[in-house]
């Protein structure tokens, strides 16, 4: 019974951490817009914690380059299981317009496993909220609660 309660709670309290891998700040502003009274993601128990040790979902925006890929990997490793990763915006997905640059690695999935891709330039707050909900579905599958 306790296990069921814990699994139910996991889906009701996804704490997110937001990491900017050198984005133009477009996606970052849209991500933070989710916290404002208009979208109020705290309704769903979502809290933007700035600490990977407390977080369940990692939101990554911007292109990954050779400088910050270590930071990204480090943040991912510091998050306790079970966890999910969401790549946000064209740059986070593939590298965007910067993908040909000599210092760019490409999308977030080149460094860490990504569960959900949220496209857009910048991604809309509604799409980001949808992305978090989709990530919860993926966590459900990982926990063996759904197929």
């Amino acid at each position, binding site marked *: 019974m306790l296990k069921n309660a814990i*699994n139910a*709670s*996991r889906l009701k309290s996804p704490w997110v951490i937001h990491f900017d891998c050198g984005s133009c700040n477009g996606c970052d502003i849209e991500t933070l817009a989710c916290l404002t009274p208009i979208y109020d993601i*705290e309704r769903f128990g979502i809290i933007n914690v*700035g600490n990977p040790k*407390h977080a369940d979902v990692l939101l990554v925006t911007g292109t990954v380059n050779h400088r910050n890929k270590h930071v990204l990997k480090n943040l991912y490793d510091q998050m*306790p*299981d079970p966890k999910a990763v969401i790549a946000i915006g064209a740059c986070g997905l593939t590298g965007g317009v910067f993908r040909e640059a000599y210092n760019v690695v490409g999308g977030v999935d080149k460094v860490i496993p990504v569960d959900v891709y949220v496209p857009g330039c910048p991604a809309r707050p509604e799409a980001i909220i949808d992305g978090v909900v989709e990530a919860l579905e993926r966590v459900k599958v990982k926990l063996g609660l759904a197929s």
Partner: protein
Amino acid sequence: MVGKLIFALVATALAPFLGGLISGVDRRITAWLQSRYGPPVLQPFYDVLKLLGKKPMTVNLWQVLCAYVYLAAAVVSVFLFYLQTDLMLIFFTLTIGAVFLVMGALASPSPYSQIGGQRELLQVLTYEPLLILVFVSIAMVTGSFKISAVFELDKPLLFSLPLMFVVLGYALTIKLRKSPFDISACHHAHQELVRGVLTEYSGPYLAILEVAHWCEVVLMLSICALFWTTSVWGMLILVGATYFLEIIIDNVMARMTWKWMLRSVLSVGLALSVLNMLWLYAE
């Protein structure tokens, strides 16, 4: 005696649930004051259950020990309160918990955790003299440090100690982690240094700290309730009004620095205490 023991045990078992509910209602009212909808009232329980289910990650064993001692001290102090024992004993038990929380933060070399620990220590330094003065003045009125002596009074303590209630309010604001004094384990600014004490705790140990905090909230509100012991309704209204005022203060005040906290709280608190005690002598 057995009846009292069973009452204390039941109250201690219910304290975390009550504390969690208070925290949920608090988040809802805060959201309402900020024109947001806010999370479900049971959200704090979901958070704690989720944290309990996370994989434990610790920096060292000291952290684990400190988390458990903090919880134990909070639970024991609630138990001692509802057993109606000595106020001083409760105070010292509470202090053990506070010191272990700081030790847990200082056990890790992370600068965030270190600064958080130091800030928490300053908060303890600020509210403890005030709490002691509140207990001493209660003892001056009742003639005993026993909580049972407060219940033998025929008029509420608030009438003879109005200024001490304000002093207790200062200690309450610090202990409930409300603005302007939320400089070490703030409820809101999750990305900032003001949550430093909790930086290195994660998963189940963070859940333990949260449950211990709920117990402390219940204890502090119970101490508030001592100021109106003549009727149950009076007690409930006093505690409810005090907590609502705390939420309002939390929302309208800016977060201040530790220097401002030390200076203003200790000076105003000590002045109010001296005034109230002089008044008690004059009566």
